């Protein structure tokens, strides 16, 4: 079962992958092994495909570095659920095929290490202490996600979803 990794407010992308471990500093094959290396030592080794990150306000603020999200994708992170997202991080998640979902109470309900399941159809993140309501994404973003990301969507359709 997916495990929840819980973070606080204003988690910036320098915490996710510090600039000194950018792909072009350490190589495309290594950068993801530095995910949360300062903020959450051990994360890159312990995270399992499908695990879910849970956060507070302004998740992913700071630098536009897509490799922060690419590292999460490479490690198989299944979704990010937060009170709110920084705008570039949100776009990067959708573009790379990671659901970025807003939830007002997930960060209060879910404890770090909880076994969780994301029920997108029901709009719920299910956790041992209760279910957190998750806001559905706009259809524009949903269409991109269901294709597996914006590149896959554009390859398939040749243009953006209709607005």
């Amino acid at each position, binding site marked *: 079962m997916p495990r929840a990794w819980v973070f606080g407010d204003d988690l910036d992308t320098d915490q996710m992958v510090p*600039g000194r471990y950018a*792909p072009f500093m350490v190589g495309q094959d290594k950068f993801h092994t530095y995910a949360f290396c300062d903020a959450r030592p051990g994360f890159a080794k312990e995270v399992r495909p499908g695990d879910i990150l849970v956060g507070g306000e302004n998740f992913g603020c700071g*630098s536009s570095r897509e490799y922060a999200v690419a590292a999460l994708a490479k490690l198989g992170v299944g979704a990010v659920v937060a009170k709110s997202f920084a705008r570039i991080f949100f776009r990067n998640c959708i573009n790379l095929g990671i659901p970025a979902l807003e939830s007002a109470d997930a960060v209060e309900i879910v404890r770090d290490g909880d076994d969780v399941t994301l029920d997108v159809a029901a709009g719920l993140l299910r956790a041992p202490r209760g279910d957190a309501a998750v806001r559905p994404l706009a259809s524009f973003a949903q269409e991109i996600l269901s294709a597996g990301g914006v590149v896959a969507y554009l390859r398939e359709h040749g243009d953006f979803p209709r607005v």
Partner: protein
Amino acid sequence: MTRTLAEVILSRVSGRDVRAGDLVIVPVSRVMVHDSVIDAVMAGLRDLGREQVWDTAKVCVFVDHAAPAPTPVVADSHRVLREWVREQRIPTFYDAGEGVCHQIMVEEGYCEPGSVIVGSDSHSNSYGAVGAFGAGMGATDVAVALALGRTWLRVPESIKVTFTGRLRKGITMKDAIMRVVREIGTDGARYACVEFHGVGDLPQGDRITLAGMTTEMGAKAGIVVGTPEAPTWLRPDRDARYLREVTIDLTTLEPQIAVPPRVDQVVDVSAAVGQPVDIVFLGSCTNGRLVDMQQAASVLRGRRVAPHVRLEVVPSSRRQFELAMQDGTMQALSAAGAVIGSSGCGPCLGRTGGVLAAQEICLSTANRNYKGRMGSPDASIYIGSPYVAAVAALTGVIDDPRPYLEATEEEFDALVARRRAERPERGAASSRSGDRSRELVMASARSGPVVEIDD
């Protein structure tokens, strides 16, 4: 009409009347790409099945984020970037040492007012200095914009920031924007556009400082209203509706300091006086221009930075660097003991040129003080204006720059001596290259010729 500047621009470029909350697909007038994302951008284009960018004349490429290359891996990445630029026949390419992408984009006139520009860097908001809707995006968004010449945006709500009054001596627009960040917070302008009123006639550099720092409030764009570059249609409606309005009186503004590790943890300088620093960084797209270096030089000219403190100056572009050489500013900073880095991002993002060690404390004129931003996660970064930076370099502690700017020579020396004496011992005192030979020359001049030159 009730349209904000963002609504005016996005309605015009999308060809329909749009309001905050609407999704639009819009043409972009330029796409800006820099070295640190080029691999991912190229991979994105490849995955999209596009051999060629949509319009080579509208693409601007920069090597600035880790430049000149600090490691073989980075050097390889730069080599790949240069080959890509050549193969794509992109004429607008600025290699290492030319400067920070944002400074060049604005000062070399690549930012068309009223147009949408996508940049691969979060501080692409800077293009609002001349009335462009500049938005930072990730590598895949940039690759898509390069392939299609279009991007999608959610029309943002806007926050109106009005500046009134006049700055007093020793206070800068850096202090003004930090005061705004203090008010709005790091996510107070999330998804929004920050519209600046009352400052359209400021020098272009000050407007870059304002627009670029809107990124630190989570903004999608930051646009200055009424700049000399803007056409007449480029203004918000009189009855525009705003999410929030903030007014800052410049006349009563104090020097502002951001305390680590948050950009919105901002205090008046009085609350930070005496805080020791080890290294001072003057540079970045926020504060690496001639005027910033002149302000620092006005404090440092004819003096020497504190023996235990390092000062690193990185001009934001070659043009700014050469201007600072022409008027003697650069000479004054070097004579004061500054390390002069090649124009570019410098140590702002911790990849090259003067990164921080654990436990080191930096006073930076840049825009971010996150943990680990400039090197070690155990370093601390304070942010301030160029005046605050110069005084910190001189004394080794954070202090209010205004008394120094008003002091007589004797008073000035006394202020410096007092602050240096109060500073706890840290680091090691450095000699300045050239000092010893000058002393020897002086000594030999006093005692007559020591060596007969016989050739």
